[in-house]
């Protein structure tokens, strides 16, 4: 049974190159998110005293790191979107 590849029958090396590039960026950023989050959860699970260090009145290490995880999630999203809007979308326009 044939698979229809509209317009183009060869796997188009530039398509697979761009696809690979996107996958690498996506995997690196995902890995960064996973490392950040599970470092935090690892501390939460295995070293509560460290995470509970009081830095000054009203501030403990976890109250610094928790919001930092939230902020870094957004920052990583922003990095990806900026990359995708500039580099990746330009690559797609070239393919078309």
């Amino acid at each position, binding site marked *: 049974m044939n698979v229809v590849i*509209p317009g183009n029958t060869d796997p188009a090396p530039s398509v697979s190159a761009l696809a690979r590039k996107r996958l690498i960026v996506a995997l690196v950023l*995902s890995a960064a998110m996973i490392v950040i*989050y599970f470092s935090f*959860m690892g501390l939460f699970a295995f070293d509560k005293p460290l995470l509970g260090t009081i830095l000054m009145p*009203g501030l403990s290490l976890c109250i610094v790191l928790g919001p930092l995880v939230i902020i870094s*999630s957004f920052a990583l999203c922003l990095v990806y*979107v900026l990359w995708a809007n500039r580099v990746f979308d330009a690559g797609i326009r070239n*393919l078309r």
Partner: protein
Amino acid sequence: MGSSTLSIGFFFAFMALTLAITYWAARRTRTTEHFFAAGGQVTPWQNGWALAGDFLSAAALLGIAGIVTSSGFDGMIYSIGWLVGWPIILFLIVEPLRNVGRFTFADVVAYRLRQRPVRLAGAVGTLAVILFYLIAQMVATGSLIKLLFGLPYTWSVVVVGSVMLVYVLFGGMLATTWVQVVKAALLMGGGILLAVLVLTHFDMNPLKLFAAASEKYGTKVLQPGSKVVSGQWDAISLGLGLMFGTAAMPHVLMRAYTVKDAKAARLSILYATGLIGVFHLMVFIIGFGAMVLVGADAVAKAGGGGNMAAPLLALAVGGNAFFGFICAVAFATMLAVVAGLTLSGVATLCHDVWTNVIRNGSASEAEQLKVARVATVMISIFAIFLGIAFEGQNVAFMAGLAFSIACAANFPSLVLAITWRRFTTPAAVASILVGTLSSLVLIYLSPTIQVDILGKPPAAIEHQWWFVSLRNPAIVSMPLSFAVAILLSLVTQEKNANLAFDEMQRRILLGPVQPNTSAQGHAKSAA
């Protein structure tokens, strides 16, 4: 009580607005494309707000604020877990989903594979997630409305179920989107206002708030404890379930189809991540505010398992009007979430099960719309019935179970289908079923069911051979699902799936070749 009249007033204003939107949307809902995807006409900003409205449940405001009020920092574990899945959606899932699929996540998993078995398995995974999440939401909704408005439980459930039915049945995705946008705006507005009003008592300095809390209740409120999440590996397992479960929640993923292209989908996830992140930071302030300004004991005494923290805080810092407003916002929140859940269940029943499995991909538009509407009525009645049946039961574990199943059943097959050439039909089916079943079995054998629900003494079951000490199954079920998928892919061959990988890669980048090309890959479905 004056505040109750006010909150009912706010509530009716919200109903009037959303029903007017539904009336407007109903006249624009003529095709399945409209019913399930709002015709792809939603803008990235609207979709970002709608995603936030879809995802932020009453638990995100009332629940987390309550946990923070009673246990301090630990409440934030949930806030963080519910956010870190969003970048994963953005990096790995949303663009392929938008470009390859049409209405459901099974569109993407089944794209290169044999349609019927994969879609059926996908429907099992999706409906299990939706069923458990919907029960958790309905029961929470019933008891919260009883608490906030004094309406009897059964009536609360019937009202929520019926209003949700009206939104989805007549207005489809367009009405649901706007209900979610309005709700998210109210929730963000209410949350930020509440947090700012709290901070005015502390020179706008959160550190002074935290210092006041630790003066009143000891520094332990600023430190991680073990009341909210017990067990070391359980914490990691919970984290896995929250992160990857969020990344594979069917009602969230479905919103990728409401925008015009992959770029718009990408932007809407960025906006949603920002909105949800800001909201969770506000809830943290609100929880500590309630701890200091209302008092943990007063919140506990108000009932509802701590859920009254935010409304009582609103009463304390903003008076009756603000209390009524926050109650109405909580109500709107529940409605928007159950409407989104129902719609994604309907999409699965209609698009995956009816159109692609029963009718083999050849149902007319009119027939699909009819089936969609019948399915909407069925799911709504089912949700109302289950909501009433589970009154007073401890169903908090069901939300966690929904995330665990999404993480173990949906996430592995979705990611492998997008990224791995060798992925095959038996692997996809087995991975989804193993993920669903292992989550169910593990949670049944854990203290969550055995001790909390069945009431067995821990000492009596701890030494049974079948006992599972983990309350959150994801750390076992997700790797198991991946392992099954990888092993079966390696021992089975699927030539068509392998060949179609290049075409799918092309489509992931460039989108459907013609705008109205069916996403179901009919060329491959005959295999």
